[in-house]
């Protein structure tokens, strides 16, 4: 008996709204369909109405987990448009926060993977250790989620001796814990039984479907912006691109744990070789008419921001391509011919950050099934019209 089960938009496995429609035959998945557009916020349009400086804090709010990735990607591009280079110390601190963010994101993901596989102990342990890196980030930037440490031409806060020392101590603890997780991840029989061979994506498929980040690297494609396009500090720092050749969810776990170890190494290097000097240069208020495509290796894969300036103090266009969006095509392929039990694991394995990837809204007429892609302005007009047509509510009671 074939039927379609709705995973989402509201489902315990999903932390953000997205709709996966699974056509299943008993326990087997026969077809998968992804529907987006539940979380569209119109950020790109909003960016055109704000100044270069204000947009740093706007882009940071694209994502709650890789907030620094988006703001760094944006700032990198704007600095190129304004033709300024941040001082070396500023760069070191900026990419130190980048790597710390990668650590916190990967630890978070490990926990989520454990939870999706029903391994709640793993989830509790990794999230407890994630607090170590969260505390370091709070100590460095003053915030736990939106670090707000980037500014045009450098960073906003300096590091002192005590902070460097404490960060190094934290790295030592995390290194030990990650080795332990690596051991559990590849040795616990029930966990491995759930992950091995699940969500197969061959090397050729990964290339054809433009997979990015750990999803691509687990299919043995050494694709990493930090290595392919060495910018800022990445040409000075020694690190390896981690790959796995198993092409499954287990490979994605292994890649992420290995990347954790690389990130500790990078953080260690950046902290020990922190150059003296200024942390920021003064940035001009306006940028000359030009365009730039900024690339950045976010924890989830390659993040790109296309920025176009027209000589004013505001961008003419900001286009964000979040890594999750690039992985959706591969996800549909991975989901096909799996088990129902594998849905949350395969979907979680791309580390989806759904609201980052929402760009348009598709409206579907409930009666006719007709589909129509609308722009944010139309959507807003639609909402306002509907509100105007509603009969006025008298004596409305709004319970608390």
């Amino acid at each position, binding site marked *: 008996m074939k*039927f379609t*089960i*709705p995973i989402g938009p509201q*489902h*315990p*496995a999903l932390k953000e709204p997205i709709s996966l429609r699974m056509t*299943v035959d*008993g*326990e087997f998945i026969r077809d998968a369909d992804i529907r987006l557009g539940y979380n569209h916020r119109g950020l790109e349009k909003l960016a055109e109405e704000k100044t270069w400086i204000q947009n740093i804090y706007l882009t940071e709010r694209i994502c709650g987990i890789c907030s620094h990735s988006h703001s760094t990607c944006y700032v990198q591009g704007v600095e190129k448009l304004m033709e300024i280079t941040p001082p070396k110390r500023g760069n070191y601190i900026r990419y130190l926060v980048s790597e710390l963010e990668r650590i916190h994101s990967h630890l978070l993901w490990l926990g989520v993977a*454990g*939870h*999706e*596989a*029903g*391994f*709640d*102990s*793993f989830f*509790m*342990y990794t999230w*407890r250790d994630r607090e170590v890196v969260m505390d370091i980030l709070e100590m460095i930037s003053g915030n736990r989620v939106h670090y707000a440490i980037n500014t045009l031409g450098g960073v906003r806060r300096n590091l002192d001796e005590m902070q460097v020392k404490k960060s190094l101590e934290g790295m030592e603890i995390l290194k030990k814990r990650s080795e332990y997780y690596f051991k559990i991840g590849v040795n*616990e029989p*029930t*966990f491995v*039984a*759930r992950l091995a061979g699940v969500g197969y994506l061959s090397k050729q498929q990964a290339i054809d479907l433009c997979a990015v980040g750990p999803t691509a690297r687990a299919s043995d494609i050494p694709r990493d912006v930090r290595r392919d396009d060495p910018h800022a500090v990445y040409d000075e720092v020694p690190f390896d691109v981690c790959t796995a050749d198993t092409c499954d969810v287990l490979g994605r776990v292994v890649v992420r744990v290995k990347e954790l170890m690389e990130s500790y190494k990078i953080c260690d290097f950046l902290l020990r070789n922190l150059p003296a000097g200024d942390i920021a240069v003064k940035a001009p208020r306006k940028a000359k008419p030009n365009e730039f495509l900024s690339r950045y290796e976010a924890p989830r894969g390659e993040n790109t921001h296309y920025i176009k300036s027209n000589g004013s103090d505001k961008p003419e266009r900001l286009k964000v391509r979040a890594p999750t969006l690039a992985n959706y095509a591969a996800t549909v392929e991975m989901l096909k011919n799996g*088990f*129902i*039990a*594998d*849905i*949350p694991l395969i979907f979680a394995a791309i580390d989806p950050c759904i609201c980052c990837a929402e760009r348009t809204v598709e409206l579907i007429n409930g009666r006719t099934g007709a589909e129509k892609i609308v722009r944010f302005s139309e959507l807003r007009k639609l909402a306002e019209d509907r509100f105007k047509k509603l009969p006025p509510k008298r004596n409305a009671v709004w319970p608390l």
Partner: protein
Amino acid sequence: MAVVKTLLYLLVYPGIIFLFVYSTFCEWFDRKVYARLQNRMGPTHTGRWGILQPVADFFKLMSKEDVVPDQADKRLFNLLPIVGLAIVGTSGLLLPVWHFNLAQSGFNSFSGDIIVILYLLSLPTLIFFLAGWSSTNYFSTIGGTRVLTMFFGYEVPLFMAVLSPAILANSWRLAEIAAFYQKKPWFILPNLLGFVIALICVQAKLERTPFDIPHAETEIVGGTFTEYSGKKLAFFRLMTDIELVVSSGLVAAVFLGGFPGGLWLGLLNFVVKTLFVIFLLSLLRAMTSRIRVDQVVSFAWKYLAPLAVLQLLIVILIKGLLL
């Protein structure tokens, strides 16, 4: 006097009041152990060390709105929680917790009661399946079929593992089996393999990690219980708790020498031994991740069933050579 004793037996110990109090305590114990193994605190707020938390949960659920889906078979949907609770409550009566007269059999201890208790413990599986099927939700339906699929895996090894000590004791009566192992404690050792198999199968029967497949939250939301709410869900939860107590009591009675020592010492024995079994079950729950339903069946038939047969062989050999 006999009537009073029977009423006491049905209502107080080990009847419904004791089962309610003790099963909520066991749930608290399980949650606390599970939480401490995961570096959490577990329940802390209600009562001392959060000991009243399961009771509070139960009464909170009782007061919640009770929704019955339009499409569901209403009579079946409403009846199942009560029938399920009655079944596990009845199975609790068969535990050999009192000092039974071995020569004389009664309604709660007779030759063959081990089969009856196993049978009564199998029925909740059917109840869960019907609960999932009658709610007509896709997630419940998948949960219901998963319940049955798993059932075909673990039930045979469980029966073989639990019955092998009975074969060694040469009795189908729980009180006599317990008395045999109290007299000859060394014979507990050959049953160790069966004890491990029974623990794993009980874990599967209770649908706890790694076998929480029928209500795997991240896959099929609430599974069998997706549509259940309020009083009915409270009954189902109480039912699972009592099932935990009864099945751990059964394992303790068969493998750990029962509960000797009359009313008070016997009660102490019961509490200590069942908590030990529940501790082992919690340990298993904390250490593993959920497996797939096809893996349960293949694991049960590839490893558990052959090992259970091996256990039977060991028992038969010992019985032939030493007894």
